[in-house]
């Protein structure tokens, strides 16, 4: 178990380091922050002074080492635009995004998993085909199209719901629906195929031959096995909790991290972009770790090694 954990953590650390390095290099190469922040009419002297004060005049590798050094001390840099710690700029947006994404994740799971199970149980029926059609539509229609469509109907035409902002729970409904349907569609498809695979396994036949009632065959024998692949997909969705809403937040003017990222990128606010990317990477890596733990819990074959190994 320890060996397993150490290997996982090392891999997680390397992944984060890779993201940090990549983001750093790309950001430095993609445009001059001084010009973006101060504007094109600024004098060369002012630009030079700006660069000097932010350390942008040093070679990239020096800047990078300095950045890494700061990271290990828990300093994430200053936002060039707001002149305060980038971490503060980012962290105040996190709850706003989670307030949107957690209900969306719940919707994905509560809608997608049962729909997938139902489709598998009623394979090739009209219900199955209907569920699969909706699920394809769910993830084939881009978020911004669905978002604008919903705004047009429910906000503009009917006037039932607000079209943008985050003031009340009513503001939540449309963006959560937009975010939830795509994920629910993906999950439904995955759950269906996992469930179909499991329902064809000999142990399901054994359960029926034992006289286990069908509902219990599904709940106790099939679902725990089908959950193993489905958890992977849910884990991936958890990983994108933080960053998955860039488009949707823009459409609904939701003041979350996605919006913050768009603004920071267009401003070349390096420190803020880097903190957001770091957070995204950390989130991905953590959810991967959680998935691995869940595997062990769900599947005794990964938790307990086989006693003897045969080999021909």
């Amino acid at each position: 178990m320890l060996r397993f954990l150490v290997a996982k953590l090392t891999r997680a650390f390397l992944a984060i380091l890779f993201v940090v390095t990549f983001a750093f290099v790309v950001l430095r190469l993609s445009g001059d922050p001084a010009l973006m922040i101060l504007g094109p009419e600024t004098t060369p002297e002012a630009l030079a002074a700006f660069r000097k004060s932010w350390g942008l005049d040093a070679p990239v590798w020096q800047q990078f080492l300095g950045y890494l050094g700061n990271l290990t001390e828990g300093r994430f840099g200053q936002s060039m635009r707001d002149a305060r710690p980038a971490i503060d700029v980012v962290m105040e947006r996190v709850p706003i995004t989670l307030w949107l994404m957690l209900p969306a994740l719940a919707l994905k799971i509560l809608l997608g998993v049962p729909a997938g199970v139902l489709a598998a149980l009623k394979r090739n029926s009209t219900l199955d085909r209907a569920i699969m059609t909706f699920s394809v539509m769910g993830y084939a229609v881009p978020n911004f199209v669905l978002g604008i469509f919903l705004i047009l109907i429910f906000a503009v035409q009917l006037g039932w719901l607000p079209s943008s902002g985050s003031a009340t729970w009513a503001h939540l409904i449309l963006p959560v629906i937009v975010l939830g349907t795509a994920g629910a569609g993906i999950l439904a498809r995955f759950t269906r195929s996992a469930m179909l695979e499991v329902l064809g396994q000999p142990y399901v036949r054994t359960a029926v031959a034992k006289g286990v009632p069908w509902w219990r065959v599904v709940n106790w024998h099939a679902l725990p096995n089908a959950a193993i692949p489905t958890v992977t997909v849910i884990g991936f969705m958890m990983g994108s909790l933080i960053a998955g809403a860039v488009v949707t937040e823009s459409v609904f003017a939701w003041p979350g991290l996605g919006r913050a990222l768009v603004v920071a990128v267009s401003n070349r606010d390096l420190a803020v972009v880097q903190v957001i990317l770091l957070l995204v990477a950390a989130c991905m890596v953590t959810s991967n770790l959680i998935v691995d733990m869940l595997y062990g819990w769900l599947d005794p074959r990964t938790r307990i090694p086989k006693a003897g190994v045969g080999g021909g």
Partner: protein
Amino acid sequence: MGVEALAHRVEFEPPAPRVLPQAPRLAFRDLKVSFAAERGLVPVVHGVSFDVLPGGTLGLVGESGCGKSVTCMAALGLLGPRAVVSGSATLDGRELIGASTAELDRVRGGRIAMIFQDPMSSLNPVHSVGRQIRESLSLHRGLEGRAAEAEAKRLLDRVGIPSAGQRMKEYPHQLSGGMNQRAMIAIALAGEPDVLIADEPTTALDVTIQAQILDLLADIRAETGMAIVLISHDLGVIAETCDDVAVMYCGRIVERAPVETLFAGPRHPYTIGLLHSLPRLETQIGALEPIAGVVPEPWAAPAGCAFAPRCSGASALCHAKAPQLARSGGRSVACHHPQIRFA
């Protein structure tokens, strides 16, 4: 595969007046099974009739695809929605074909238990062996908690699993193939069934383990008096365990007789062919006499006797008309020209 909700087309025949010394426990009458496929309904069992007496042992022997497993699974409603089943299979006189799901759930595992070929994949990988036995105890005998625990341990002991208390907590992947098949037998015994259907129970096991499992089945039968239907492609395995044999070919029983009678003097050319095509330990080594040709696919079954294209003694009659299973002197043969040849 959904195993629920079968499409049934039940044709009731008036029960023929029979004078039997003993009422059959399981009785199959003209059982037919077809599967819905792209090319239409493909018949795989063409009307099979046989009895299993209380405490009796019947071996169903035949090659893959001959319908021996399908026949048994049809009786328990295990074939899924693509199967169309007709005819009758009764347990102590009660019809199983078309019975309600609730009724079938009481029969499955309670009155008729079944074990399968590959014990490793037949057990659920995410539940411990003990829990899988206790599930049956709870369903069929209402045992819960301590009582179920103790009984599960007793059953594992009974099927010869050493340190049963420890093994109960283990998962199928931690046990060997033989141990898993013993655990499957323990699950089958949990419902105290009257009939055990064993579908190729030793095919996936090594020969020394196979012998252990066959011995265990014989022991348990002697102890509990339950009837056993053993499905196998291996005549030797059938001979070890069963008193009666039915040989199946292409969805029909072609010969049925007590084991000794059948092996001493098979009548159907297919049975004769099977006996002569396999090497045996007790006979002189000579050239094997294979059966020519291949088993026809179910959707391309010949019009007359299904074995006629492979049979050296086939006549025009054989190609035109399928023979019926005819009874004479304690045995039955479905052949227009039954042969007598001593194995």
